[in-house]
Every structure is written in C-alpha cells, then in structure tokens.
C-alpha cells in the first residue's frame, strides 16, 4: 500500500496535465485549503505490467460463457457475439447525455429503432429503454400501473398478485412499489390455478405479474382466460420477460393480453452479463399505458421537409412517472441489444427460440434425473430426488461444466432448473448430460465434499455471513493484503 499525504496548496506544482510531474512530494500537495481536504489516501501503487498480470490471473479464475455450457435456468446465459462489443466501442457513440438533441441524432436513432424493434417483438405499443436492469423494468411496470390506476381514480388498489414460483424480484418489486403481495399457488400441472386466481382477484387488485412460459418452462395455456379475469376486475397483466427466449416469433405477450412487460436484454438479446451486470430492462406497454412511461422517450420529429433522413427528439409522456435512472439507462447495453436484433432479424430470432426449445428437450431426454413437469419449452426443472440439489450443482463443477440453477422453484423437490439455450451443440449437450448422469449415482459423501477440481474448494458460506469481512480493512492480518 502507498500512503499519499494531502498537503497544502501549491498550485504551481500541479498546473500540468498528463505526464511530466516533478516528484512524489509535489504531487501530494493540494491546491485546496487544509480544512476542505482529507489527510491521506492509502491504496496500492502498481505499474501497468503488474496490473495486467493481476487481472489476467483473476480472469483465469472465472468460468464464463466462453468456458463451456452455462445452463442456469431462468438466467438465459447465451453466447455474447463479439461484434457487439465493437459497435458499443465506436467513439461516435461516446456522447454525454446533456448534449443537444440535434447533435446526437445518431444516438437517438439507435434508441428509437430499438424501441421500435422491441415493440414489434413483444407486441407492445410503446417502449421505454430507461430501466437499467430487469428488476428496474419491473419497478417501472409497477409504477406505471400505480400511476394508471391513480389517474383513473383507482388509487385504492393496493394488491399485486404474484405466483409462488415467480422470480424473487417480482415480490420485492411489488413491495418496493408499496403493494401488498398476494401469493398465488400453482395447480397440480404446475400452472396458474384458475380457482386460486379467482379467489385472489378483487377490486383491490392492481396487477398480476406472470412469466410465460413459467419458471417450469410450461406455457400458461389459459392465458387468454387469465387475462380476461384480471381485466374483468380492473387489474393489469404484467409480463416478466425472463423467459421470452422461448417464444420469439411464436407468440407475443401483447397478443396474449399482457398490458405491460419488461425485456431482459442480457437474456433474450445476448448482451453480456458482466459477472452481475450491467443489464437493461426496457419496458413495453399497450397504448393505454404509454402516457405513464418514464421521461424522456425518443420519437421521430415532424418532417422538416428539408432532409431525406428522419430526425429524432426526446419527449416527456403526458402523465409520465418521471425518471427511474439519472439519465437514459445503460447505453452500452442497449446498443449491443440493438446490434444483436439487427443481426438476427426475423429468421434468426425465431430460430433462436426454436433451437433453445429443442436443446432443452433434447438435454432432458438424455439425463437420468426425473423431470416431473412437461411439456416444457426453453427450460426444464429436474428433481435431484433424494440428493441435495445444491450439492449436485457443486459436484457438477468437478465435471467441468456449470451447473443449473438449484432449489427453485420449490414446487419441484430439490429443483435443478436447467436452460441450455440455443447456443449449445449436440456434443456439448451430451457432455452436459454426462455430467448430470455421473452425479446421479454418486453418494452423499462425495457430492457434499465437492467440488475438488476447482480454483477454490467448497467455500464456507456460513462463516462468511457469520463474521462478515467485506474489505481489506476488515481483514485481521494486514499482510494478507
């Protein structure tokens, strides 16, 4: 660690920009008065070659999509086309959000076209690109629903219905929006129980949040009836886009009766997940809800008659809920999603879903674990039966593959929620099936001790939570740094 003391003003010594500073002591001086500055800053001082090695080494201790199959159910880990990084890196796209609209017509055109693409794909009338992640998209949906009800004098609606098997974000988002969450059990086929839905619906229903296919990969066949029931009580139908990769070109949420939806671009449109983010969670709505979307959105400007090219402008929807992000969301993600959709087009998108569904069905046919619910689409939930699903996952790491999502949805005991996506070849799926089938016969002692072929062996998560050490400063032994 290097400690830099922040000293007195000495502005002459600091006038330079770039290289050529004269020495460590001069550099630590500050042009500000002492009482406005901190005393010191202690951080490591490393050269570029040392940093290159540090981060290269760290990268070698990470399993990514270029390492092998990554069948995380409901997370849709697809291959991230390399060229999308190139379009995101174009210097012409690196603009400040406070630039005048006339000076960033290119940026606005990309956003406008992406809004348009997403509207067509989801069957929605209007789209906002501002939400910086799927959960933020859900929040926009809930806020839009609230604003809509409020606008209609229905501010009393204080319940959001969420199926038991839904993503945790659905519950948390509804709560963040100030709603009471009404949990909806599944029927024995793994789908929405219409009787339970009937019971849950009331004049207090603000919205039902649903994903389709659901987390078991099953299509909610009664979707038309569900929509009618929700609409009958004055509620809105929200579509969680997490599973949209199952349906591209086959069905559209808008056509099923959904009023509002979010798109997970890192799932459906192959933008990289970056070890946790950034994502983007654009939200599409039907016409009636468009006035409530976040501000600003992008529109084509009236033709000035002088130019062949369209011009674009920002506008605030009439009854906008305002901002849900300081600016316009995650530009670098959005431009990649635009490029992906523009590359694949109708044919490519439809084929992506077709192959995603084929892959899930093929993989399920090759594994020995039981898959209780079907017919599933892009993902299936196997049961580890007597085994602990989390242990199965750890053991699969030893076979060189990434395991599925585990222990969820709870409707399947010891769930192994598996989504291979369209990008895996038959060979890879066979290898993945081999990993499942190797573990299925192993005893508890073996899988509880796993993994033992990884960078780190099984990590004690309980200890980490019991005495949290969350920075170098919290480590007892400074030498560990």
């Amino acid at each position, binding site marked *: 660690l290097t400690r830099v003391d922040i000293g007195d003003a000495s502005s002459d010594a600091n006038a330079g920009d770039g290289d050529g500073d004269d020495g460590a002591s001069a550099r630590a001086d500050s042009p500000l008065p002492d009482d406005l500055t901190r005393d010191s800053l202690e951080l490591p001082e490393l050269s570029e070659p040392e940093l290159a090695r540090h981060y290269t080494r760290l990268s070698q201790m990470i399993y990514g999509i270029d390492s092998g199959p990554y069948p995380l159910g409901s997370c849709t880990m697809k291959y991230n086309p390399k060229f999308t990084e190139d379009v995101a890196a174009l210097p012409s796209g690196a603009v400040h959000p406070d630039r005048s609209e006339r000076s960033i017509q290119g940026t606005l055109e990309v956003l406008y076209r992406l809004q348009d693409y997403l509207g067509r794909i989801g069957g929605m009338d209007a789209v906002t690109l501002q939400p910086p992640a799927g959960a933020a998209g859900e929040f926009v949906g809930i806020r839009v629903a609230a604003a809509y009800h409020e606008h209609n004098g229905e501010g009393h609606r204080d319940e959001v219905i969420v199926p038991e098997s839904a993503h945790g974000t659905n519950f948390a988002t509804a709560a963040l929006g100030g709603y009471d969450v009404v949990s909806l059990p599944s029927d024995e086929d793994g789908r929405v129980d219409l009787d339970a839905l009937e019971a849950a619906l009331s004049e207090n229903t603000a919205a039902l949040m649903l994903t389709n296919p659901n987390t078991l990969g099953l299509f909610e066949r009664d979707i038309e009836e569900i929509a009618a029931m929700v609409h009958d009580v004055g509620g809105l139908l929200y579509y969680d886009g997490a599973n949209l990769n199952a349906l591209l070109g086959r069905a559209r949420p808008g056509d099923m009766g959904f009023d509002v939806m979010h798109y997970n671009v890192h799932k459906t449109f192959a933008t990289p997940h970056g*070890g946790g983010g950034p994502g983007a969670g654009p939200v599409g709505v039907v016409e009636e809800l468009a006035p409530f979307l976040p501000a600003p959105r992008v529109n084509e400007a009236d033709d000035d008659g002088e130019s062949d090219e369209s011009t674009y402008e920002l506008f605030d929807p009439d009854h906008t809920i305002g*901002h849900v992000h*300081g600016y316009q969301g995650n530009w670098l993600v959005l431009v990649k999603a635009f490029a992906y959709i523009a590359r694949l087009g109708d044919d490519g998108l439809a084929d992506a879903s077709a192959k995603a569904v*084929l892959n899930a069905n093929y993989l399920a046919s090759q594994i020995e674990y039981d898959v209780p619910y079907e017919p599933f689409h892009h993902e299936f939930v196997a049961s580890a039966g007597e085994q602990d699903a989390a242990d199965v996952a750890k053991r699969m790491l030893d076979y060189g593959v990434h395991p599925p999502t585990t222990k969820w949805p709870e409707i399947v005991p010891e769930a192994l929620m598996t989504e291979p996506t369209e990008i895996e070849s038959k060979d890879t*799926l066979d290898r993945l099936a081999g990993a499942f089938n190797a573990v299925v016969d192993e005893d508890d002692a073996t899988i509880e001790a796993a993994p033992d072929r990884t960078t*780190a062996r099984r990590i004690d998560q309980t200890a980490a*939570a019991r005495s949290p050490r*969350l920075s170098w*400063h919290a480590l007892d032994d400074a030498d560990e740094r």
Partner: protein
Amino acid sequence: MDGSHATGSPYAPHTDTEQSAMLEAVGVDSEAELFDIPEAVQFDGEFDIASRSEQETRQLVRSILGRNDDLTELLGRGHYGYYVPSLVDHLADRSEFLTSYTQYQPEVSQGFLQALFEFQSLLVELTGLEIANCSMYDAATALGEAATLAERVRSTSGHRVLVPDQLLEGRRSTLENYVAGTDLAVEEYATADGTVDVGALDEQVDDEVVMVYAENPTIRGTIEERLESIGSLAGEADALFVLGSDPVALSVLQRPADVGADVVIGDASVLGLPTSYGMGLGLFACREEYLRQVPGRLVGVSEDATDRRAFTLTLQTREQHIRRERATSNICTNQAWVALRTAMHAASLGPNGMVDLANRGVTRATDLANRIDEIPGVDAPVHDRHHIREFVARTDQPATVLAADLEDRGFAVHVVGDHEIQICVAGVGDEQLDSFAAALEEVAR
C-alpha cells in the same frame, strides 16, 4: 458465421444432421411440435426485421452513430469524460469477466469476486465508512435506495427527506419514484451561492426528518465548506446524513466519515467508463450498523475446504431471491462489470494518480474560470467558492443562444440558467481548452 448456416441464428450451432438426431431423440418431427401454445395466441406474423451479416450490422450501427456531431464536450454535472486507460478496456473485455454470470458458484468465480472485493475496499478507503456494496445502477437509484434504507432504520416516526434545491432532475425524480411506495416525502432545502445554506437548512430540520442529502462537490462544481455542520444538524435530529460524491473528488476532499456521513452514494463510473450517454455505476457505502439493511450484493471473505482464503457473495438473505418481498431492495442484476472497470482505472492511477487527477480538476477549472472571466461578456466563476472540474459562468448573451453558437463551433456546454452556462474541464486537453476560450471570445459579446 456468414455462410456457415443456411438460415436462422448464426449463434445456434446445429448442423442438419445434429438437428435430426436431436429431434429423433426427443421423439418429434419438428421443433414446432415442441411448442405448446394455444392457437389463439400463436403469432404468425413477421416482425419485419431484416437479417444482416455481421459486416452489414456493423456498418449499419457505424452509419447511424455517424450522425452524431463530433463535438468537444465541456460537460459534466454528474457524468464525466475522463480518459480511461487502454489497459481497462483490454482487461475488462477478457471474456471471463465480460461473459460470466453473478457469482452464485463462488468456487469457479474467485477472480471476479476478488475484483469486486477490491472495489469494495477502494470505496471503504475513499469514504471512510465500513461497508460498501458491489454496485447499484447509478447515483440516482443509489439515492433512492439510501432513502428506503433511511426508512427502514429510522428510529423516529418522521417521513421527511431533505434534498438540495439544485438536485439534478433525474436524481430527484428517481428518488420520488423510489419513495412512492413508502411514507416518505421529499422536500427541498435552499442553497446559497452554489452550496448548502446551512442556516436555512437548520430551520428546516426537525424530528420528522429521517434523511438529509447533500453533495460534495455540488452539481455546480463547488466544494462544500460546512459539511461538518450539515452532519451535525442531521445527527442531532437522528436523521441519516447521506452524502453524494465520486471517487475522484473523494481522493482529496474531506473524508465522508470524518464529517459524519452515514451513507455515501454517487456515481463511481467517473473512473472506468468514458462518456456513455449517462450510463453509470451507483456507489453505495454506509456505516457498519446498517449492514443487515444494505441493498445490493456484498462480497466477503471466507475459507474453502482446504482452509485457504476464498471470496464469496455473502449476507444474501437480505436479497430478493431469498427474502422476496422482505428484501432490502429489488435489485438483482447490478453494474458489476462497470465496478470492475472502476477498480481497474483506480488501480492504474494509484493513490498518487488519483490525488493528481482530483487536484488537476481544481487547478484547471480555476484557471479556466479566471481565464474566461477576462472575456468580455462572461463572468466566471459565478460562485465565490472552490471548484473542482467545473464551474458556472454568467453570460451577457442568453445562455441558449451562446450554447448554440458554441455548438456550431464544435463545443458543447451546459445551459443552467437564462444567462448561465456550466463548463467542465474533465478529460479535455489543454489545446482544446485554448480553442474553446477562443471560440467563446468570438460569440460571448
């Protein structure tokens, strides 16, 4: 790849032979049979989106973005164009970093976890607070999360959240959305000459206040001189003192912990990201006592089965995938990869480089303000304060006219009042500043 598959997704590897074998194994004749969709809701239209080769797609985007004007941006106000070292691009783009998922399996994610742990450590050093999470979306959403934290931990029955009257609209509006589902209400307090009017604030603070938010530097580039007083006011009312800042400013300005800050939020991507149309990285740090109430992900240290140190996501019971509607936030996907870039940029600067960068922001903004103050038709800086990176100038010309004239000459500045523009030097070279001053002289009178 171009040409290697007749139709369909270029990223689906199936040859005809493989496809047939797989269909046979599944027991169907076609993929269509696998879709269990009632006819009434089947989609049989077209999106009417053309398929393109990779080359064509790149040309398309290049051509569209080519419509953006090539301007020298003297823009800041929360989003900065510092030069990002090439090292950051090359290392962060390694596909292991870029293409991995959240570290739910830490045994095969040690590298990313360590990088995030180092990011947290950087923020702990910069803020002096004990806890930093491994990212929110941006400063605006981090501010919203701070307010919901304040609500959860408040010991009073109050509901007032105080924010400066000069708060950015995007932040203010986002905050309003975050508190819409709570009992909290957002109120403005006054600023005077670009910084907090502590006297006015004093009169507004009472036991009903659960949170006081201030920024240092302020959105107008000034440096707060009475942070300790603000902290005391908040503390006496048992309200959370939430301070907005960023890693560059924090390298030299007063350490938040030393002025009584309970939470620090801000945009950490001032290091790590070039201008990205407002894309950011929410910084969130707080006192240890709020640990169980922190939103977002935390990386901690543990041991593996061989007793070696190992990193892992921890305290996940705060999070939505476990706690559902009782979670501390609905955040799931965050900005981890941007946090990686920020950590890399900070590491490449080192402590000397970070202090340098901040100090140069002070001297270069001051120098430019003094310089353009000499230009007829311009007074700068408007505020009699210390500045970092940016400052407001008063103009004889209407600010919108002046800004448009400058844009025609290749420079972008903020319009922040009828006769006020704001100018930021971050990432702008000396030669560009010379050209800007010359252009300003042409159009200011």
